[in-house]
Every structure is written in C-alpha cells, then in structure tokens.
C-alpha cells in the first residue's frame, strides 16, 4: 500500500497524497472494466471450449489432414491457440491501461474542481 501518513479516507472518497478516487469515478471505471474483462472472458471461454466441442462433433476438424500430418485440430492446439492467447492478453492489457488513464483524468478533474471550491 501507499504511504499511510499521506493517505486519508473519507466517506465516499479515498485520497493518497494529492490523488483522489471517488466512489462514483471508481464505479464508472469498474463497470467499463467489468465489460471489458467479461467480453474478453466470453471470447476466451468460447474458443477454449469450442476446441473440445469441435473435437467431439466436427469430423473435418479432427480427422482431415490439411498440412502433412496436421489436422486443423492439431495445428490449432499446438500452435495457433497460443497466438490467440498472446493477442488476447496484449490487446486486453492495452485497453485496461487506457481505462486506468480514464480514471486518472477523471480524478484530476475532481481534484481541480475541489481546489477551486477551496
């Protein structure tokens, strides 16, 4: 945690040094973060469970060689699945960083407003 001597907590906001989070701004970003995480999560689980589903029911996926001995199933599980994971993790991290930035801008606006009001 941060420097406790510079941190104060009030009813609806948290302050660490010059930096403030309000429950409203955190809730706003939380909802955006939740949407982002659960959207990516839905894609991840759809693909991850789609692989065994295809292995069970789609013969063209698991039994037809497409390159040497590679079936689509083998190629995806041994190589493409990892590329999918890397792309997901990278784009998700970038978008989550942007959300953090949104909260930062929002918090600075709140702090500036509070300063003007004295």
């Amino acid at each position, binding site marked *: *945690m*941060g*420097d406790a001597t510079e*941190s104060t*907590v009030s*009813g*609806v*906001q*948290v*302050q*660490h*040094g*010059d*930096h*403030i*989070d309000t*429950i409203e*701004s*955190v809730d706003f970003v*939380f909802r955006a*973060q*939740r949407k982002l*995480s659960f959207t*990516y*999560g839905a894609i*991840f689980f759809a693909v*991850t*469970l789609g*692989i*065994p*589903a295809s*292995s*069970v029911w789609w013969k063209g996926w*698991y*039994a037809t*060689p497409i390159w*040497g*001995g*590679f*079936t689509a*199933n*083998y190629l995806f*599980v*041994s*190589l493409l*699945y*990892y590329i999918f*994971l*890397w792309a*997901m*993790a*990278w784009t*998700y*991290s970038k978008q*989550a*960083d942007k959300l*953090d930035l949104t*909260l*930062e801008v929002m*918090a600075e606006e709140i702090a500036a407003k509070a300063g003007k009001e004295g």
Partner: protein
Amino acid sequence: MNTIAIVLVVGLILFTIALSIFSRRFTRTTADFYLAGRKVGSFSNASAISGDYLSAASFLGVAGAVYASGLDGVWYAAGFAGGFMVVVLFIASALRRFGEYTVADFAFGRFGSNRIRLITVLAVLLTSLFYMAPQMFGAGTTWSVLVGKGIFGMDPYTSGVVVVTAIMAFYVGVGGMKGTTLNQIFQFWWLMFAMIMIVVFAFGNGFNYPQALADASKTPIVNTKSMTVADLTKPDAKTGKTPYDAAATIMTPAEMAKVDEVIAAGDTKAKVAVALPSKNKLHELRDQLFNEPGHRYNSFDQFSMVLALVLGTAGLPHILNRYYTNPSGAAARRSTFWVLVFIGTFYILAPIAGLAGIGFIKDYLANGGTIAAANVHGLLVKPDQIMPTLAEILGGQWLMGIVAAGAFAAMFSTIGGLLIAAASAIGHDVFEKYIDPNASERKRVIVGKSAVLFFALLAMGIGLAIPKFGLDQAYPALIAMMVTWAFAVGGSAFVPMLLTGIWWKGTTERGATAGIFVGLFGAIGIILMNILQTLGVIGKDGIIGFLGSLTFPVLFTFPLSLLTIIIVSKLDGELPKNVDQIWMRIHGTANERHEKQHGLDKVGTMFAKK
C-alpha cells in the same frame, strides 16, 4: 548417470545456493522476505512466475504425454497455458492493487473477519501440500532415473527426496523471496534453454514437423505397459482373452519370444514390458491415431480437463502471491502477458520434442543403438523418460546433462515458490496476526524461515510416504494426476472467492467463507474417494462411486463453491460497513498514482542497499 550430467546438476545446485547467499544481504524485512520488496519488474516477474509454474510435470511430463498420447497430450499442454488468461482478465491487477502480502490478507481485507483469513490459510497450506507432493515424488523418481544410486545408505528414491528437500529448505530459508525470485528467473531460462536445445537438435538431425506427424499418424498408437506375469496371462471376464493375446497382435515374434522366456521362468510376480493396442475413447469406432483426439480423454474429459487446468491456475497460492511482488496493477497485467509468451513458447516446443522422440528413438533402436530407459517395440515403457533419452540420442552426454539440470531446475523453481507461499501463510498470516503481532522484524523473518523448514520437512514426509501407500503403482501417470488434484483444490477453494470478491460487491463474509469451505473440502473429499476407489477400498456403484470416478473434480466443485457464495450472500445480505472503501481499494488507482508521482513504483531496486 554420465559425468557431464553430474557436473551440470551439481553446478546448478551450487549456483542456486550462491544466489541465495547473495540475496541474504538484501532480506531484512518481511516485505523483503515474502515479496522481494515489491520491486520486481514485469519481465523478471514473468520469468519467475514461469519458473514457479513450470514444474517437473511440465518439463518431463508434457513431452511424455504427447509421446504417449499424441493430440490429447498437446491439449493437456494448452490447458496449462490457458489458465493465465483467467488470471490476467479477472484477477491480476485487482489483487496487486489491493496490496498486502497473501491471498489470506485479501480475504481478510475484503471481508473483514478472522474466520475467513484462517480458513484461507488452511486452504493455502492444503493446496500447497497437494502441489508439493508431486514435486517431491518427481524429485525421487528423477533422481532414480538420472542418478540411479542412493547416498548415505538410502535408496535412490529416498535420496532424491531428501537431497531436494535439504537444498530447497536452505536456499528458500536463506534467500527469501528475493533469492527465490532470482533463482526462479535463472531456473526458468535454464529449462527453456534445455527445451530449445532439444528442439534445435531435432531439426538439426532432419526432423520435419508436418512429415513426422504424418508418419506417426499412419498406424494406430501403441501403448506400452510393464505388467506382472499374473496380470499378463489373466483372461478378461467378458472376452476371455488375455493381455498376452493382445500383445501378440502388436509385437514381433522375436519380441514375444522374450516375453515367453519370462513367463516360462515361472515367477508370476515377475514384471515384463509389453506393447498393447490402444482404444479411441472419444470416437470408439475409429482407430486411435496420433494426430486425433481420444487417447486419454473421452468426450466429458475433453472439456473437464481443460476447465480444471484453466480454472485451477488462478487458484495456485504460490502463483497468486507473486502478483503482490509487482510494483502496480498495470505491471501485474504486463507480467501475465509475458508469462503467456514464455510458457506458450515452452508449450509449443514440448510437443515437438514428444513427437520427435517417436521417430528418433525407434530409428536409433532399430539401428542397434541401446538406451538406459526400459523399452519395448521401439517405444519407451515410461513416457516421462522421453526428454533425457532423446537428449542423449540427439546430443550425447552434454545435451543429456543440460536436460538433467533442466529437470532439477523445474523442480527447484516450483518447490521454492510453494515453500514461500506456505511460509507466508504460517509466518505472516498466523504468527504475525495472531500469535505475536508486536514481534520485531528480525523475529518475524526468523519465524518465516522456521516455517520454510517446517513445511519442507512436512513435504519430505509426504514424498517418502507416497510409495509406501502404493499410489505410484495405482496411478500410471501419478505426477500429472497429483498436479491436477492441486489445481482442483486451489481452483475450487480460491477462485470462486476471488472472482466474486473482486467483481461482485454483494459478496458477504459468510458467503465467501461458506464457498471456500465447500470448494476446499468438496475437492479434497472427491480426490480421496478417487484414491480409495483406485486402491479398491470403495466400489464404483452409487453416488460415492460416481464421485470417486471424477478424474477432474473442479468441474463439479467450482460451480458448487460459486453457487454457495451467491446463495449464502443473497440470504445473508450483511455487507462490510466500509464496502465502498474496500471497493475503491480494489478498483481505484489513487494509490498507484501517488506512488508513481513519488517514484515509488520504480523497479530494478530489488537489490539496493538500505
């Protein structure tokens, strides 16, 4: 064991000890001992997490699984990697932002009761023990295979368990999280180097991936098994045929003549290795080819295995603890991305090694070569021996030495993380909170080190007990099975609590406590029933028989725990009084901005003098 391999393994051990002694100078506070001062950068942390995660089960077991089972072995590897997506999407940054030291701290801070902290501590210790058991068993078996001799009058298995325990207790106790982190970084890159070298040597010796896969898939997979003469000649109750009859359909007359010799000797307990036809568990009417699914998993297990690994990864306390060593939530996400790159690369390479082993070993034996590992019909009897065997064939003693050191590095790095997690549960969560809250920093660190020693001895006892209970005979792939159990316990106990605690404000303390309780003891209960069923103590009928047959209990216990949390929380409705502040602590960034402004988020000072 060859001299070069001994030199490389001893060199690895000495280097490990030297790193710990170096780190000791920088371990003065509990934050240093448990969290490396929270100054580990994303790349370093990702390397350490990867070292933590890739145990002997991954280094030796994944290539072995692919060698023996083809595509189902590759799918097993993919499940391990997929688990980190759950971590990055739902847990990593929130856990780090919340701060603190351990998962139990998160539970206490989020829900505000000693009861939930203590049950979380219990869950951490039990999960760590479940994960430590296969590492200790791996230490004993790897020592038996690679060294082959005991020391101080002990048998090889016991020697492996005792030596690894002694080294681990020393280096974790002396170096703390900083020493463990440094060691895990080094150990991860060593085992990655070993895996890359195997694959490079395979391609250098003419391996062609698509062609080798086509060649391996021309005929059905052949299983190998070491059986007693009694079992080999026992007729099946339904078909009246014996395993001997089945082996005769696969093995050559010359190979069968050797089996006949053993049978003719008259010792019914004598063991003999045979090759047997395989069955396709997924598409029963199809031959089981290498490039098709179905050798290990039926349709239910194709789903349940991957869900067990994906959900279980986020419940491993030694992995979760590492997220607290990041300097910020964003850094925690970046660490996880790099973990996915590192372990993804590893899991792309391991199946190549497994596939390459089929052709190279068969050709080597066909051309009159000999190998130390037991083999039949051109195949290894124990697939877990594929890595050292392939290394010796492709690169001689040097490459085998590199792989042998890689196997020990994989065990050391995982055991190190588990010891730190268990020590923090005992030393930080119990001693510092309940026994002596006013203890000096020095005393706290001493207690942490004592906890490392205590837990290491406990793990050693379990490692030594496994063969005595006959578990190694009951389960053909015991290391992989025990790793899956650890994933099940952690995934059922922690992940529902973490997911609801982070993403649902309405989660109450009673709901979370009940969820942990149900998930933890539900998973352990099903695992015990599975063990008892496998040992023949309980039958396969009724509800107990059904539960005992569940190979991957997390598919059952995870939703049960989640539902328990939701239902009890709804019925309870008593939220913590300061729930808004807690919410802002999990999802707000004021603290991180403050640290950033004052340069407190900087990394690279893990070894700064104070």
